[in-house]
Structure formats: structure tokens, C-alpha cells
């Protein structure tokens, strides 16, 4: 997937190519600090990449952008069901200078 937008800077930059593992959460739930891909609760056609800031007692995820000032996240749209998560962003392919796992 290609990153659009600046809310995950400096971890992810616009234009980065990411590999997303769609099976990462078949066996376990997302954990805090992981980078996940999930539909925007307000516009499910749009897919977001955010960091799991916390997991609440009901297993829902609080998502946050790494650049808080340039991010719309759970502060605006609330917690996201863990089951809605589509995968884990785990590896950057481009740019080659930053090739490698993302965390």
C-alpha cells in the first residue's frame, strides 16, 4: 500500500510503500504500539494507517497518528473494533533508503 497524508510522520512519510500482513490478527488481537490498517469509521471506503495507542477493556482499539497535530484519529472518531482491523503494516519497501521493518 502507498501512504497518503502526513499524520504518521516521522514514522511513515507520504509516498512510502508498505507491506501489510492481512493475516497478522487471525490468531491474536492487535496490541498497543503496533501499526495497523483499518477502515475509517466515518468513511469505510477509505483505509487508514494508524498506531494502536491503547486497547480498552472491551478489546476496542484507540488509534492515534504519530504526528498528533496532523492527525485525525480516535480523538475524533472514537475507538475502533479490533475485528475491523484489516492487517498490520510491517515492512517498508520504498524508499530504498528506509527499506526494512516499520515499527
Amino acid at each position: 500500500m502507498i501512504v497518503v497524508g502526513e499524520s504518521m510522520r516521522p514514522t511513515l512519510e507520504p509516498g512510502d510503500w508498505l507491506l501489510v500482513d492481512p493475516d497478522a490478527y487471525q490468531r491474536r488481537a492487535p496490541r498497543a504500539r503496533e501499526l495497523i490498517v483499518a477502515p475509517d469509521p466515518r468513511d469505510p471506503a477509505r483505509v487508514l494507517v494508524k498506531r494502536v495507542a491503547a486497547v480498552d477493556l472491551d478489546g476496542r482499539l484507540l488509534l492515534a497518528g504519530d504526528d498528533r497535530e496532523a492527525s485525525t484519529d480516535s480523538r475524533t472518531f472514537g475507538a475502533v473494533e479490533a475485528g475491523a482491523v484489516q492487517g498490520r503494516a510491517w515492512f517498508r519497501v520504498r524508499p530504498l533508503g528506509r527499506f526494512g521493518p516499520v515499527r
Partner: protein
Amino acid sequence: MLRERILAALAPRRTVHAHCDIPCGIYDPHGAEIAAKTVSKMVALIQDGWAEGGRVEPGSQADLEVRNKVIRCVKVKEEHAELCKRELQVLWSDYFKPEHLEKHPDLHDRFWKALKQAGKCKQSVDAAAAAELEAQVARIADVFWETKGGRPS
């Protein structure tokens, strides 16, 4: 050419949004510029009023009206100098980022001086001080538009 075609063929088909509702485009130095211009205009009006006050009979209704006008202009000058500071502070803290500072190492100094200059304009009735505030705000606006790739036409 070949490299570009290979890359295009390999490029991911899907996008993932590191999304923000608030586009940085909401920031604009225009508010600070207008506020600084208003301060200049008020200095001129206060000076006019003061001169007019010297020509009317002390204690008369005309004297009262002139004083009223001068005081109103002082109030607007005070408010717009404060507004100018507020607008500058928002640009400084919310818009500008570390990478802008790398390209414009004097940015903090520009803001600091402009904010101090707005304070000077409150304390004084000084056309030169107000013109200096306008010039300092304009220099910050120049940096702002440079980071945006040019002024909108």
C-alpha cells in the same frame, strides 16, 4: 524510462491514509497582516484626533466628542495589536515545523521581534513603530509563502 515503467508496474494498487481532517491550508498570515495594518491606521487616526482636540474649546461638547473618538481608536489599536500577536503565535506554534526552521534559522528571532514590536505599538502612538510591525509581519508572511511554494495569485 525503463526504470519508471518497472516501478509503475510494481507500485502498490491501494492507498492507505495517514489522514488528518485539518489541512495545513487553514493557516494564513493574512490575519496578522490585516491586524498590523489596522494598528497603523489607528495610530494615524489617534494623531488626527489629538490635533483636532487642540483646536476645540476645552470642556466643550466638541472636546468630549474628540476625546471619545481618540479613546475608541486607542481601544481598537490595543485590540488589533493583541490580535496580531495571537495570529503570529498560532503560525509560530501550529504551522511552522522543524524542517522550516532548518531552512530559515532566523524564524524564531523573526517571531520574537514581531511579537515584541506589537507590544511596543500598544505602549506608544508611533507611526514608525507601527510601520515596523507591518514590515516584520510581512517578512514572516514571506517565509510562510515560501514554505507553501509561492503566494496564491
